């Protein structure tokens, strides 16, 4: 992290005064606020009483209320808690299935010479192909296999979407681990499986955490496959958060509360697991 403290563009030879530093604080602060305007606006609207939402769109809530959150969580007919549970199950299930498939196979590819470089390259290539291509065949396949509108079906679909990234990240994580320890273990007669479980997995743990965080977020955020492959039983929040349109009108307050609640899990990761996220996203992008 030493690089953080050295300015990249050399400024004039004088050492920077404190006043100039604050200019950056203000400029970057404004950008940070600007990109979060939709989120902050939703948060504000969610605390406004229904009458106030249309009356003063620009003001802060004068009489903050938790009514919308109560509606979203407890009012009958909305099913929002069910959507939230569905999203959680789909995301956790996908993380588990992705790791279960990707960790052993990436180990076999990188360390045991299975297949070779082309599998990693195919993974990189697959990540670049448009997901929309797979929507129709998945719909047909899932209808035939009884996976349509099931949690398991969406776990499978999201595993498909996220496997390439997981394999790429795990492969680069594995290459970072020195091979000597595994070779020594093999000399001592440890089996491949014992080496993988006892030696490699603990060292690969940080990469696995990064993969888990990214896969969780991407799965939570999926919309296209949920739109096609779920109708009611497996509906996740990305689809369900807009369901607050009733015969009496659009319930903007409830929608804002639901959409804000729905972004909380990914946002929590963004704040508390930022280290993994930044390394995962940039490594996934920057390494191949």
């Amino acid at each position, binding site marked *: 992290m030493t690089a953080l403290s050295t300015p990249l563009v050399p400024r004039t030879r004088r050492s920077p005064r404190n006043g100039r530093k604050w200019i950056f604080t203000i400029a970057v602060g404004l950008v940070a606020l600007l990109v979060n305007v939709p989120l902050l606006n939703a948060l504000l609207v969610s605390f406004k009483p229904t009458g106030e939402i249309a009356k003063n769109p620009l003001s802060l809530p004068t009489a903050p209320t938790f009514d919308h959150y109560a509606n979203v969580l407890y009012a009958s007919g909305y099913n929002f808690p069910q959507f939230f549970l569905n999203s959680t199950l789909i995301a956790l299930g996908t993380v588990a299935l992705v790791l279960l498939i990707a960790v052993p196979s990436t180990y076999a590819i990188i360390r045991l010479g299975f297949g070779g470089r082309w599998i990693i390259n195919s993974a990189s290539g697959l990540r670049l192909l448009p997901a929309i291509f797979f929507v129709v065949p998945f719909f047909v396949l899932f209808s035939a296999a009884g996976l349509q509108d099931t949690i398991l079906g969406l776990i499978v679909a999201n595993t498909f979407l996220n496997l390439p990234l997981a394999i790429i990240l795990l492969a680069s994580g594995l290459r970072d681990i020195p091979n000597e320890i595994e070779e020594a273990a093999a000399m001592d007669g440890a089996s491949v499986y014992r080496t993988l479980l006892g030696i490699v997995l603990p060292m690969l743990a940080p990469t696995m955490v990064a993969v888990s965080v990214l896969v969780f977020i991407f799965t939570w955020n999926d919309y296209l496959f949920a739109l096609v492959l779920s109708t009611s039983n497996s509906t996740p929040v990305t689809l369900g958060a*807009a369901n607050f349109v009733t015969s009496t009108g659009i319930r903007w307050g409830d929608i804002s509360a639901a959409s804000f609640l729905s972004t909380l899990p990914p946002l929590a990761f963004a704040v508390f697991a930022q280290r993994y996220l930044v390394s995962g996203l940039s490594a996934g992008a920057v390494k191949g």
Partner: protein
Amino acid sequence: MALTAGQRKKTAASVLLSLPLMAFALAFIVYPLLAGGLTAFQASTIFDQSGSFNGIQNFIALFRSDGFAKSAGFTVGFSAIVVTIEMVLGFGLALLLNRTFPGKKLFFTMILLPIMVAPALLGIMFRLLLNGDIGAVPALLHGMGLSVSLFSPSSVVPLLVVLDVLQWTPFTFLIIYAGLQSFPGELLEASAMDGAGPFRSLVHVIMPVLKPVLFAAFFLRTIDALRTFDVIYVLTAGGPGTSTTTLSIYIYKAAFESGDFGKAAAAALVVLVCLIPFVPFIVKRIASTGIEAQR
């Protein structure tokens, strides 16, 4: 060649460990690829997929209707504009944050938040912000004496560009910023000693070294922009008319609104075939970025 017992065990283990991946890939990657390709040449609908082969009928129908070409044009134009803006702004932002100043950690985290928000949910939030009755932006414009209908045919495309830039500049920023962190500081000191000003250092020292990272950010964003679906579908559903129909929205609608699986699969196949030639090139470009060499 005779294998030793150890080698044979290793091979057996590698096959066993790869089995889950191979099984999954066969069922959910290879099979859908083939099935999708096949559907493109069949008279297949949402109700009946047992359709017979109809040669290139689907492709003829696809190119006869102007919807496909129009959505392809919109997608490419939209992507070119947003990616250009996001690259410039992301690069600028990365340079801006590449120093210490009070509040940097907090703002860095805040800038990354939009990447984590589901595009579909962000679409809903944009609706809250932009709605003519309750939105803050129309209220603000109204307060300034402007009466702009944000979703009218003339302003909807610029609007979508702004929204895309708001969400994805943080992504290009992150990639470029990560690249800057591995930048060899001596290079800059050397160029500063040679009397190069900030701008010359930027163009002649930073950009060449960062080129692989800039390429990676550019290609990843381009690929993502080309398949844009969520935000636009939630906000405009491709309208008004078909003015904001991206390729993904076109294919989705062909399949699940018109129910014509054959046509949708044909459109998807055309898109796939157009993209495939670029894939090896991009994979190579991304694989050869400087950050890997740093190890």
